[in-house]
Structures are given as C-alpha cells and as structure tokens.
C-alpha cells in the first residue's frame, strides 16, 4: 500500500510539473505579449513603453530561463518588476496586474469561499442523488421510479445558470427567504457561514443531484441483478440492508469516481454560482481577471490551481478506490 501511494504521489507530482509548464507556456509564450495589458494600463501604450516593460519583466530572456525564474518563485521569494519592483513571497505565482497584490495571498483568501461552496453543494448532490437513484432502482418500473426519472430529466434539461438565477431572483430577492447570500468566513461563526451559503448549496446540490440520481439508478439496477444480491436475500438479509448495504456498497464505486472529478471541477471555481450569489471565490476571481486588461498572473494561477486540484482529486479517488474495492488493493 505504501509503495503504491509513493508511486502514485510521484506520478502526480510529475503531472503537476508538466501541467505548470503548459500553463506557463500558454500564458507567457502565447501570441499575446504579457506586458501588453500592463502597458495599456496607464495612458497610451507606445512601442518604447512596451519595449521597456518587456525588458523590465525579463520577457527577453530565453524561455527556459523564464520558466526557471517563475518556477523558482514557487519555493523562494522573488522580486518582480513592472517598472516598480514588487517583493513576492514564496510560493510566488506573481503579482496581480490590477490589484498589485501577491497572487498567492489573494488565492489563499478566495479559496475558502470556493471550498465551502463546493463541499456543501457536492455533499448535497451526492447524498440526494444517490439516495434518489437508489430508491428509483429499488422501485424500478413503478410510478415512483418513472416519476423520479422524469423529474430528474426535466430538471437537468434546464441550464444551470437559469436554475441559479431563478433561485436568486425568487428565493433571495423577491420572497426574501435567503436575503443574504454571500460568504462569511467560518471564523465569524458557523451560523452566518452556513446561512449565507445555504441557497447556493441547495442550487448546486439540486441541479447536480439529477445526474447523480440517474447515474446511481443505473449502477444500482445493474448491481441489483448481480448474483451476490440474490445470495444476500437467500441468506435472509433484510431487504433494506440488501439495498443499502450489499447493493449500494458495490454500486457506489463508479459513482465515487465521477464524484471525485466533479468535486474537483467545483473546487476549481464555480463561476456561475459565485457570480450570481455574490461569493468572492476562485471562479469569480478568475472571471474578473479575464476582463481587459487581462490580469495574466491571476488567470495563470487559477488554471494552475484548477489543474492541480484535478490531479489531486484523481489521486484521492484512486486511493479511495483501493479502500472501497479489495480487488484493487495492492499487496
């Protein structure tokens, strides 16, 4: 098990390094000059001004050296110059063009909001979706089943942003059931934290649960046809335990895989939700950075962080897998 973990960790680290190279290449070696937005910032951008900025930012150096400087910043403090010189503490992902703050500390500030949002929403859609799917499978072919499947299809046919907007307009603004939807740090109290996030959680959970309901229904229907389920019934296991222990234990495995990746995407930024419900998280931060003039370091950071989260989530799913499925367990 330890060897397996070490191997997986090394592989994950390699993936992260390669990803960082891609991200770097994408944003700093792309067709647009990273100095361009900065040059546009104050007054007219003359060719001389652009050349000076390019020089100051070290963009004339070789690609490898630039990546080296950038990567070194992840472990060591570094000076960044756009004209004025900024000190950037390690791990350094650069200085935001617009706020002139360190990207890393802004990230650390925004991340808890996104994390809170993702954990709550994902928990709701996983639990609700798997429960509904299991019930539908249990009552397969009955009106209960057909009703659940139909409603889930209808709901999933509505675009997510429409659901979120409608929820915000009616539940928050018109009827005032959730007047304050925003992020309050946990340190300010669990009550205000949970209350502010309740509506966005429910929106994410409700919208996401439909896919999980249908997916786990399928898995469950398949599992319920397995021989070992018949064995369990033949042993005298209560039908509730046959469904929620024996069958769910097996049916949940592929659902977990899907969940790991979905959760990673949520963590990487829930753009619509954060935008609509006024939550200052990664998604909104990234969107704002894309507005002209493009805040290159912030965009690069969100992409890098997002891909790291997905790599980590894959790793976690793999490790989890070996706990859930003894056949995967490596001796």
């Amino acid at each position, binding site marked *: 098990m330890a060897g397996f973990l070490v191997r997986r960790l090394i592989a994950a680290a390699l993936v992260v390094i390669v990803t960082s190279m891609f991200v770097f290449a994408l944003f700093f070696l792309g067709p647009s000059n990273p100095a361009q937005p900065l040059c546009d910032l104050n007054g007219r951008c003359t060719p001389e001004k652009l050349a000076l900025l390019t020089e100051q930012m070290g963009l004339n150096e070789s690609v490898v050296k630039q990546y080296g400087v950038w990567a070194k910043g992840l472990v060591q403090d570094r000076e960044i110059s756009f004209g004025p010189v900024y000190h950037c503490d390690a791990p350094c992902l650069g200085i935001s063009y617009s706020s002139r703050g360190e990207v890393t500390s802004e990230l650390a500030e925004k991340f808890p909001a996104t994390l809170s949002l993702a954990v709550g929403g994902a928990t709701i859609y996983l639990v609700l979706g798997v429960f509904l799917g299991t019930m539908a499978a249990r009552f397969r072919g009955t009106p209960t089943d057909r009703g659940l499947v139909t409603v889930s299809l209808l709901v999933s046919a509505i675009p997510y942003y429409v659901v979120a907007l409608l929820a915000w307009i009616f539940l928050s603004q018109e009827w005032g059931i959730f007047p304050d939807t925003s992020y309050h740090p946990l340190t300010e109290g669990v009550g205000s934290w949970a209350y502010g996030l309740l509506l966005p959680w429910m929106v994410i959970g409700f919208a996401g649960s439909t896919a999980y309901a249908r997916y786990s229904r399928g898995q469950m229907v398949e599992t319920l046809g397995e021989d070992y389920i018949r064995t369990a019934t*033949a*042993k005298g296991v209560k039908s509730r335990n046959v469904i929620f222990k024996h069958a769910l*234990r*097996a049916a949940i495995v592929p659902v977990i895989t899907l969940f790991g990746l979905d959760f990673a995407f949520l963590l990487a930024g829930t753009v619509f939700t954060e935008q609509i419900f006024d939550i200052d998280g990664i998604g909104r931060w990234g969107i704002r950075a894309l507005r002209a003039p493009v805040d290159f370091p912030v965009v690069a950071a969100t992409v890098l962080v997002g891909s790291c989260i997905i790599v980590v989530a894959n790793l976690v799913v793999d490790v989890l897998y070996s706990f859930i*499925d003894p056949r995967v367990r490596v001796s």
Partner: protein
Amino acid sequence: MSGFLTTEAPQPTSRAHEAPFLVVDSLSVRFPTHDGLVKAVSDLSYAVHRGETLGIVGESGSGKSVSSMAVLGLHDAKTTRLEGSIKVGGQEVIGADEDTLRRLRGREVAMVFQDPLTALHPFYSIGRQIIEAYRIHHDVSKSEARKRAIEMLDRVGIPQARSRVDDFPHQFSGGMRQRAMIAMSLVNDPKLLIADEPTTALDVTVQAQILDLLQDLQREFNSAIIIITHDLGVIAEMADEVLVMYAGRAVEKGRTKELLTHPEMPYTWGLLSSVPDVAADTSEKLIPIPGNPPSLLNPPSGCPFHPRCQHKDKVPGDLCYTTLPALEPGRRGPNHLKRCHISNPDAVYEVDVLPEMGEDSAGHAIREGMAVPDMDGTTR
C-alpha cells in the same frame, strides 16, 4: 396432480415415516412480459425428505432453477405469478410475508449457487459474509460468529481457515470459493440445502471433491438436498430420486437407479444419449437431442416435447400434437412416473434407443451403476 405424493409406495428407508420436509404441490411460476406470459414452471409437484437427495435435471430454461428459487420466495412478487403450494417444514411459502420468508431463508433452507465468484460479494471478506449469515439468525456476538465461521471453513476443508477467513473471494480459487459458499450455506444448519448447479463452474476434479463434501455434510447434518444440474453423472453420484424437467414441467420422476436404467420418456433417452463417454471410441458419435428447447411464451400444443421427439410415430393418431400426457406411473410400478403417450417405452428403449447409443457409452456406464446410490441412500 398431488395424488402421487400420497400414493407413493413405502420408501425403502426408515425416513418414509416422517413427513417430507419440503412439499411442492402443483406449483406454477409465470412471468408476465411485454410479449406475453412466460410459463416458466407449470404444475410441478415433488417432495423431499430430510436426509434424502432429489436431483432435478433439465436443459437451460426448463424451469429447474426458477422452481427452486420459488422455494425461498426469491422471485420478485411484482413481476411473478405464483400458484400452487410450497410447504417448507409445514410452513406455506407462497404468499407468505417478507418476515416469514426471511426466517426461512438461510436458516431452514439454504442455497448454493452455480458460480461462487459472482455469488459472493466481491467487497466483503469471506468471513464477514459467513458471519453475517450466522448473525442474521443467531443472536451472538461478532467474535462468537467469527469462531463459528472459522469452524465452518475448517469443516468444508479450507486450509488455514483461521487466517483465510479474512480473505476476499477473489483471493480464493474456484473450488475454495464454492467450499466457502457451502460453509456459508451450512452455517445455520439448514434442514434443506438447494444446490443450483454447484459444480458447473468448477474443474472436474474439484467437482468430485465438492460433491463428496456435500454428501459428507448431508450425512452429518441429516439435511435434505435438492441438486439442480444438467449433468447426469452428478445425478448418478448424488441423487436418491430424480426429477426430469422439460419446458417447465416434470416429464419423468423416479428413484435414481430405476430411472437411469429404465427411462421411459424420450427426452430422458435423449439426455442419456448425449452424455459423452471418456472411454468411448472417438469415432463414436454423440447423439444430441435435435432442435431447441421450446419457447415458454408459446409452448407447443399437446406434449411439449413433440417437436423434437423422434418416437412420436409410435403413438397412434395425433395424440402427441393435441393432448398433454399426464404424469403417471407406467408399467414399472407406482414410484416411476412419466409424461409420455408411448405405451411400451421399455420395448422402444431396448430396440431403438440402446443400440444407437452403443455398447460402452456413458449412458451405459451410468446405467450400469458407476456410482449409483444404493437403496439405503449411501453411495456405492
């Protein structure tokens, strides 16, 4: 239909005095589908005493598994129509509520399934599955149940049961899995064990071990066994009584030796002729039964076997096409029942069937009592 249960002549064993543990009477199992009603089992009756073994033989889809699953009420009540009566130790199963069924399942009647790899939960250790089976019916602590599980694994011949109890099914070989499955079935000392093709998925060598194990355990626990198979060798080895099923109906029934030596129904003849013989000349041909099993959606009129029967010309008129023969005793005494219009099956068998099968075919070997149980129920 239930008549033959009561008209049965005194059994050659002392068990005849007891009431049979399982009585299936006029059972029919039907599945309504979009295409119509599937008549999986029709008008099936049999009885099994404790300490006895009933073998049920037939092709896939002949209703042998379906009928035995009904004994445990394993069919989904919503999609299955059950009629008739199944009495387990006097308790009616058909129409019984879930709680009643659960008390029977695993405790009074246990099942061993065909493929132990798919029949064991892949995510639970062997021990955990046996412990669960025991604790459902016994109010004991986990450690006590674990002790019992180890004891059972040891009993069925799993080496180092104490350490292997925590293994998962995939860490066991096929034969060991089936042993574990048997250990799990027997953990509650059931009075009836239904083994649904217990050796079909196993090596032949392992198959013999498993059959021996079942017989040993039967002697030890005096349980009744129903063994479902399509292998007449297994029947000859294990069964005291044989029930041959075709198209959801019993077509022949009798004591094993009697039925294998004097089969009276062309389908049984076909089964015997299609058994390969390892010692036979390779040029000797097996004689398969022509055609396919009939659709249970639209069973053939009259005798369900008539489309495949090579002996229907021996029946006067179009009786085979129009009239379903009754399951009744022929000339071989009241214990040997058959569902066939042929009036002199013995003669037809001797003259037409036996010579074709060849002198040393496997059917012959079985008939000559390779391992036919003696009348007292023990082997050889």
